[in-house]
């Protein structure tokens, strides 16, 4: 057994919200019922690209039971355009408004055009069908290459270059010299399909615009403050006039950072004078919220006889969907991020197409890029006769390695992750038989900091109440409580976490970018230190002592000792309540490297892939709650395997999504995957007192290339497009 300096960190307490979740008491947005509440529904465009010639809502408004109808004309007059920051990505206000309710043109099938509030959801749906819209259909473009071609239909006026909203270029060294020094050069082009995060709970929002002018929103969001600020921006209100109460969240994976329904529900409430609830259908979720970009990526890598990468070049075109912001930036930053390469050229293109406006999805932009790099390295390793992990080890990024986009790494765990993969039982086990293949790949994700706030108040019974603002997607109530408990020398169960509304805690950024356990964890750590400082002063008062020590949950001074609980019981007599608080904006987020080993078996007659064995490896810095770290690794791996094998937006030529249900959008079910084994690597992050690195995202990066590499060994052919579904595997 390893020796740990910690009492709480690294243990596996039962999550604080567990009982509420498994007994059905936890309240989600769709559960909310308010007095006099009415129900909203949205009219969505059947066209992928069309001009709105006429929009007549009079028949809908006249239907009995209808309380309000809104269109883009109901937005307050547009102030000057500005950037709305979502923490993990941002959007121009004009684009955000345009996406929430179309004005002038519709840009994708599913684009919201108008909304109705009615006595119930059925009447609302009936009223939506009475809204008359005359469209002038326009030609649509559905892929980045098509949208970049000369003469392509244009979605917007005034972008950088046709449908290209942004061009990114990172360059270091001398590419020509680098490739000249290579003995093996491989260049390939890859296409990936649009995929959705696939959370279970649809987007929902309830809004009440009170007669005093304040707007109260209840919604499923990854960031209550981001939802507040974005809603306020769209409605041209001061942020203090909007209060967001985050409900429990049934999955987000990046897709619940943006706002879709909140401003619409608010406008409907303003018009109707009633609380308005809107809940999306599954088709609304697929066609009206942000999936992750489809892409075309071309990568060229040169390696010398020693197995050292001499040069690497990448060309990435990502589909932003209807509005700019395809997450090609992170794709360009991560494409070669695992490796120490002297000569690099990376070009990225953010391309608008007639598909839903894309959103973040777990390490957004990185899997598309890693698919290319990691399959090409696999091919080069084969050509050179080097073990694919050994080739990666020879080129692994380390502390001090400079990435092509600028930064030099602090301590990262790339080498350690590759070594753990190499040493694993899985990597050293034989394959079970014919038509089987094993693939490996690694991936890097930055993780982010951003502001977080937390308050701890001490109860007389020796417990503490934790007030925080990070909506809990992956067990963060517990990972945060554990950090407080560690500092205070109490049990995790003695910390009672509550996630409160935006009026009740300091600003806290999104639960995204794998930042919550790191950044809100730091806020909790600082708040707990504040509590310790105050309680030391109380002990000093009691003992009339100059100095009080605190260690292992015991306050002491000379012969005097008190446990945390004993001192907590005496707060009333020593000056009253103790409340510790902290607000942080940390810079020290530590990037995380993840690796995957996967064994597959392919039915040569049907092309069906069965997943036999999977091992996910990731650097967690310090695993606060190992079970939730493992859960993140398993979740990201499952999503990545689904993305690799079967998931896709199946669009017809007119841009209509034909598989907008979980029946036909083929995510893996529990019956499709084996138990995913995990190996947690711990290379502490110097930017966090406990060494925490975010673990939510890097794990989704390796599955695409690892599956591709395994399939190559199973079928003898390299596939250059995702999904690698049975028909693709048989080339039919």
């Amino acid at each position, binding site marked *: 057994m390893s020796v740990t300096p910690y009492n709480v960190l690294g243990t596996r307490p039962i999550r604080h919200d567990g009982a509420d979740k498994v007994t059905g008491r936890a309240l989600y947005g769709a559960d909310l019922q308010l007095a006099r509440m009415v129900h909203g529904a949205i009219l969505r465009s059947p066209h992928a690209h069309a001009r709105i010639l006429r929009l007549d809502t009079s028949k809908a408004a006249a239907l009995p039971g209808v309380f309000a109808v809104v269109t883009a004309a109901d937005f307050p007059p547009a102030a000057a355009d500005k950037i709305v920051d979502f923490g993990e990505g941002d959007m121009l206000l004009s684009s955000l408004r345009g996406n929430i309710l179309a004005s002038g043109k519709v840009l994708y099938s599913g684009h919201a055009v108008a909304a109705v509030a009615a006595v119930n959801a*059925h009447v609302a749906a009936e009223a939506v069908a009475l809204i008359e819209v005359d469209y002038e259909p326009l030609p649509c473009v559905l892929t980045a290459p098509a949208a970049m071609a000369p003469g392509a239909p244009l979605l917007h006026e005034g972008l950088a270059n046709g449908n290209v909203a942004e061009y990114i270029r990172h360059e270091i060294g001398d590419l020509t010299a680098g490739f000249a020094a290579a003995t093996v050069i491989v260049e390939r082009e890859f296409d990936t399909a649009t995929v959705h995060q696939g959370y279970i709970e649809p987007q929902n929002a309830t809004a009440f615009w009170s007669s005093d002018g304040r707007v109260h929103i209840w919604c499923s969001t990854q960031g209550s403050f981001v939802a507040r600020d974005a809603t306020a921006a769209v409605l041209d209100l001061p942020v203090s006039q909007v209060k967001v109460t985050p409900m429990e969240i049934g999955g987000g994976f990046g897709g619940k950072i943006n706002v879709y329904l909140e401003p619409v529900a608010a406008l409907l409430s303003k018009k109707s004078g009633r609380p308005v609830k809107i809940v999306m259908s599954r088709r609304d979720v697929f066609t009206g919220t942000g999936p992750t970009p489809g892409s075309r990526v071309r990568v060229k890598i040169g390696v010398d006889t020693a197995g050292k990468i001499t040069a690497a070049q990448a060309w990435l075109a990502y589909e932003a969907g209807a509005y700019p912001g395809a997450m090609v930036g992170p794709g360009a930053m991560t494409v070669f991020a695992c490796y120490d390469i002297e000569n690099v050229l990376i070009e990225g293109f953010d391309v608008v197409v007639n598909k839903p406006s894309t959103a973040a999805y777990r390490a957004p932009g990185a899997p598309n890029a890693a698919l290319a790099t990691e399959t090409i390295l696999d091919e080069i390793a084969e050509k050179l006769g080097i073990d694919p992990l050994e080739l990666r080890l020879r080129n692994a990024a380390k502390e001090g390695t400079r990435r092509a986009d600028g930064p030099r790494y602090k301590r990262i765990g790339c080498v350690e992750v590759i070594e753990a993969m190499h040493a694993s039982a899985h990597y050293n086990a034989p394959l079970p038989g014919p038509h089987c293949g094993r693939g490996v790949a690694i991936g890097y994700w930055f993780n982010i900091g951003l502001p977080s706030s937390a308050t701890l108040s001490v109860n007389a019974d020796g417990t503490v109440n934790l007030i925080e603002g990070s909506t809990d997607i992956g067990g963060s109530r517990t990972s945060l409580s554990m950090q407080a408990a560690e500092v205070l020398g109490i049990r995790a169960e003695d910390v009672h976490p509550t996630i409160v509304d935006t009026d009740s805690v300091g600003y806290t950024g999104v639960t995204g970018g794998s930042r919550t356990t790191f950044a809100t964890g730091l806020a909790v750590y600082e708040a707990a230190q504040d509590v310790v400082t105050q309680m030391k002063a109380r002990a000093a008062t009691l003992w009339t002592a100059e100095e009080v020590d605190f260690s292992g949950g015991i306050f002491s001074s000379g012969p005097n000792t008190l446990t945390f609980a004993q001192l907590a019981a005496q707060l009333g007599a020593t000056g009253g309540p103790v409340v510790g608080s902290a607000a942080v904006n940390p810079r020290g987020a530590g990037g995380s490297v993840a690796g995957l080993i996967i064994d597959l078996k392919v039915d040569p007659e049907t092309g069906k892939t069965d997943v036999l064995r999977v091992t996910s490896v990731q650097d967690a810095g310090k695993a606060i709650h190992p079970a939730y770290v493992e859960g993140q690794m398993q979740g990201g791996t499952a999503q990545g395997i689904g993305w690799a094998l079967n998931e896709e937006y199946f669009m017809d030529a007119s841009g209509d999504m034909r598989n907008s249900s979980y029946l036909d959008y083929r995510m893996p079910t529990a*019956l499709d995957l084996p138990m995913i084994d995990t190996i947690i690597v711990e290379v502490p992050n110097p930017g966090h007192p406990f060494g925490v690195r975010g673990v939510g995202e890097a794990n989704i990066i390796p599955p695409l290339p690892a599956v591709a590499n395994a399939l190559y060994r199973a079928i003898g052919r390299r596939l250059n497009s995702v999904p690698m579904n049975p028909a693709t595997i048989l080339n039919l």
Partner: protein
Amino acid sequence: MKAFDYTAPATLPEAVGLLVSQPSARLLAGGTDLIVQLRSGRKEADLVIDIKKIPELNALDFDPIAGLTIGAAVPCYRLTAHLVIQSHFPALAEVASWIGGTQIQGRASIGGNLCNAAPSADSIPLLIALGATALIAGPGGRRTVAIEDFCTAPGRNQLASGELLVSIQIPTPAPHSGAAYLRFIPRNEMDIAVVGAGVAVTIADGVFTAARIALSAVAPTPLFVPAAGAALVGQPVAPAALEAAAQIAQSAAAPISDMRGTAAYRKHLCAVMTRRALEIAVTRAQEN
């Protein structure tokens, strides 16, 4: 979903009377298709007639002479759990356990699967292979239709105005018979067939004496391929015979490309699934 009236007649004549007076009424057995279609707006209803309270439609009887009678409203779980079905019609018990998940099987009926007339319906190719018939009641009395003639187009069937399905009749298989249904789905469960193949064979002295083969998801309706079965009759049980029948089934298929698979891929799968289903059916026949 629009508001609709709901009624649950207790007798067959009552149900027929309601259908005659309101031809646009929708019939509800398990509702696992109808409710989804109403909620998505693909169908509308002013009146929904629940047929689950009609005793004859809940019958599940086996008689060695008359064969198996499956009332139109009998949910799948009753077939899966039925000992006679498990022993005499194991392929049917399997299909009933593949349609939807456990919760769905508590409601979904084979009768509904037939009447919904999806080209991809899992039960229909097997019913065709087993030589089943549909017993229909209407204002003009009762009539019987072979299952292979029941579906007329995607979502459309033989039922005329005022008519409803009473039961499905499956003859008792001859000695040394075996049947199987196989579908291809890219996942392991909870999916719609990309291609399905239902087969039934009878063997005597190592030679096929009867065979019927039908496919799903490769034509506007479940597709009976009599020539594929006929090609087996008189042939010795050997891989070449199975492959030849599979090739005939493949030639008969006229699939489309859609989100569940390309036409070329479906065509390819026809032969694979037919051959694999025949292999299982042969094993079962040899064990009987």
